[in-house]
C-alpha cells in the first residue's frame, strides 16, 4: 500500500507545498510548530480541504487531481481519521459512535454493533457502550475515537495530534496503547503532532513542516541529531549555527568564525551541544580552538542544570551546574569567556 501525494494548498495566510510518498512499512510523523500547515496537510489528504494543485493517489488510484478534475469525496476515500479532540458525536453513545462508520458502509445493524463492541473491548472500554461522550474522560474519549476510526478497517490511518488534548498523566498511557495499535495496523499510517517526544516514540520517520514547507525528513534520531532549522534545534535543545565552511573554518552568517575538526566546503550547519560549552571569567588558555567573549543574556533554571544564554559575536547557550553559576557569579550583563572544543562541534552540509 502506498500513499503518493503532492499537496499544494493556499488557504488563509498559509501556502502549503508538500511532496510525500509513504508506504505501509513505516509510521510517519509530521512534526512542526503551530501554523506550519500540519493539520491542513492531513485534512487535504482526507479530502476535507480541496487541493489547489498537485495530486493524491493511493496504490495508483487517483483520489484527487485538480488539473484532471478528479476528486474522490472524503466518504469514499476509506481513510480512518482520529481527530485532536476525538470529535465523538455527542448525541450518540460510545457504541453507536464506533458503529457509525460501519452503519454508513451498509453493515447490517446487528453485525455493526457486534464489531463495534469488539473494538471497544480492544481499546479497553468494554462495558462503556452506552456512555455518552460527555461522560467520558479525555483518555477514554480518545480511545473511542481510535476505535471508531479503526472499526471501518481503513487502508490509511490519519491521526491529528492524537494526544494533544490529554493531560500529561493520561498521555503516557494512551501513547503506549497507541503504539501497539499503530504497530498492529496494516496500512498507511500518518500522524501529525507538535510534540517531538510523541513523534519520536510513535513514529519511524519524521517529517518537519515549517511555514508550509518540508524542512527535514528522516528517522527521528537523525532529525534531532542533525537539525536543519531553529525550531528543531530548539526542540532538541541544541545550538544550531549556519555558515560557509572553508576547510576547517566556518564563516558564520552572523559574523564570527568557528574552527571544527572535520574539514568541509560550502554551506553548512553546525551543532554545538550546550553541555559542551564552557564558561570562564578570564580568557582560558588551552586546547579549545573556539574562544570568545560575550555577555550573559539570561539564565534558565532547569533544576540541577542551568542553561546560560550568552550573547556576543556568536550567540550560544551553555549548560552548567548551579555551583558553577554561583562560583562565577554569573548574572545577566556579566561578561564571560566562552570556549568550545572543535571536536565538540558537529557540522554537516546545509
Amino acid at each position, binding site marked *: 500500500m502506498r500513499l503518493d501525494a503532492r499537496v499544494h494548498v493556499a488557504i488563509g495566510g498559509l501556502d502549503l507545498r508538500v511532496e510525500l510518498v509513504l508506504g505501509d512499512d513505516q509510521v510517519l510523523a509530521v512534526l512542526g510548530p503551530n501554523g506550519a500547515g500540519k493539520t491542513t496537510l492531513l485534512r487535504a489528504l482526507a479530502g476535507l480541504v480541496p487541493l489547489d494543485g498537485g495530486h493524491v493517489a493511493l496504490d495508483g488510484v487517483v483520489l484527487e487531481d485538480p488539473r484532471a478534475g478528479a476528486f474522490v469525496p472524503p466518504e469514499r476515500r476509506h481513510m480512518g481519521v482520529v481527530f485532536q479532540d476525538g470529535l465523538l458525536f*455527542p448525541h450518540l453513545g460510545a457504541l453507536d459512535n464506533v458503529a457509525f462508520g460501519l452503519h454508513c458502509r451498509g453493515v447490517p445493524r446487528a453485525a455493526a454493533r457486534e464489531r463495534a463492541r469488539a473494538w471497544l473491548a480492544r481499546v479497553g472500554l468494554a462495558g462503556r457502550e452506552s456512555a455518552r461522550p460527555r461522560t467520558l474522560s479525555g483518555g477514554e474519549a480518545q480511545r473511542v475515537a481510535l476505535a471508531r476510526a479503526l472499526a471501518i478497517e481503513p487502508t490509511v490511518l490519519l491521526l491529528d495530534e492524537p494526544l494533544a488534548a490529554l493531560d500529561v498523566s493520561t498521555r503516557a498511557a494512551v501513547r503506549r496503547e497507541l503504539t501497539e495499535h499503530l504497530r498492529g495496523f496494516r496500512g498507511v499510517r500518518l500522524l501529525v503532532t507538535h510534540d517531538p517526544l510523541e513523534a519520536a516514540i510513535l513514529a519511524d520517520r519524521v517529517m518537519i513542516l515549517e511555514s508550509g514547507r518540508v524542512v527535514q525528513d528522516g528517522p527521528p534520531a537523525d532529525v534531532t541529531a542533525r537539525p536543519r532549522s531553529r525550531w528543531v534545534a530548539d526542540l532538541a535543545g541544541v545550538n544550531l549555527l549556519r555558515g560557509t565552511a572553508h576547510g576547517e573554518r566556518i564563516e558564520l552568517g552572523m559574523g564570527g568564525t568557528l574552527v571544527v575538526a572535520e574539514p568541509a566546503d560550502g554551506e553548512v550547519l553546525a551543532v554545538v551541544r550546550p553541555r559542551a560549552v564552557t564558561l570562564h571569567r578570564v580568557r582560558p588558555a588551552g586546547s579549545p580552538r573556539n574562544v570568545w567573549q560575550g555577555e550573559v543574556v539570561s539564565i534558565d533554571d532547569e533544576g540541577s542544570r542551568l542553561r546560560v544564554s550568552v550573547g556576543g559575536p556568536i550567540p550560544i547557550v551553555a549548560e552548567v551546574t548551579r555551583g558553577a553559576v554561583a562560583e562565577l557569579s554569573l548574572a545577566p550583563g556579566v561578561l564571560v569567556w566562552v570556549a568550545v572544543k572543535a571536536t565538540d562541534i558537529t557540522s554537516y552540509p546545509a
Partner: protein
Amino acid sequence: MTRRRAPVPRPAVALAVLGAALFVLPLVGLVARTPWTALASALGSPEAMAALRLSLVCSLSATAVSVVLGLPLAWVQARAAFPGRALVRALTMLPIVLPPVVGGVALLTAFGRRGLVGRWLDEALGVRLGFTTAGAVLAETFVAMPFFVLAVEAALRGVDTRLEDAARTLGAGRWRVFRLVTLPLAAPAVGAGALLCWARALGEFGATITFAGNMPGRTQTLPLAVYVALESRPEAGIALSLVLLVLAVAVLVGLRGRWLGAP
C-alpha cells in the same frame, strides 16, 4: 455557603411590576369575562367548530410547508457562501418586520388572480388561491416561516462543522451527514422553531383576511372568526379568544423557555 443576592433597586421593581401588569391584566380580563356557563354553546356552534378545525388544519399545514422549505433554506443560509447571501437572509426575515396586512397586499400582487404568478396559475392551471384554504395556508406560511428559518439557521450555525467532517471521513455522504449528525444536534432548536412557527401561523389575521378573504369553512380561521363575532355576539368572540389563549399557553409550555436559538 450561599451567596446573598444584591437587592433589586426599588424603582426597577416598580417598573417591572407595571410591565408585568401590562401582560397579566388583559389575560385576567379575558378569563374574567368568559361566559363560563354559555361556553359550551358558544364554542359548539357550527361556525366556531368550523373556524377551530380550519385554524388547526391551516396552521399545521403552514408549519409543515415551513419545515419542508425552511430546513434547506436555513441550511443554505447557514452554510453556503454565495454572492447576495446577506440580502437573501434579510429578505427571509422581512415578513417578521412587515405589518401583516402589507404582507397580505404583497401576496395579492404576486399570487392574486391578477398577480405576477397568480395570473399564470389561473390561466394555465385554473388554480386560484384567493378565497381558498390553500390561500390561507400560503398567507400563514408567509408570516410564520421566517421564525422557523431564524431558529434553525442559528442552530445550524452552532453545530460544529468538524463533527460533520468526522462523519464524512467515516463514510457518510452529505445527506447522511445532515440526517445523522447535523439534524439530531440541531433538533431541539428545530422543534422550538416549528412550535413558534405554528403559534404565529395560528394567530395570523391581517395577511389572511387580505389575501384569502373571510370565507367561513374555507378561510375563516379562529382569529377572523373572533373579529367578526365580537360585533354581533361578543360572548362567542370572547369564548373563541379563550380557545386561542389556551393554545398559546400550550405553545409556551411546549417551548419551556427556549426561544429563537440558545436554550
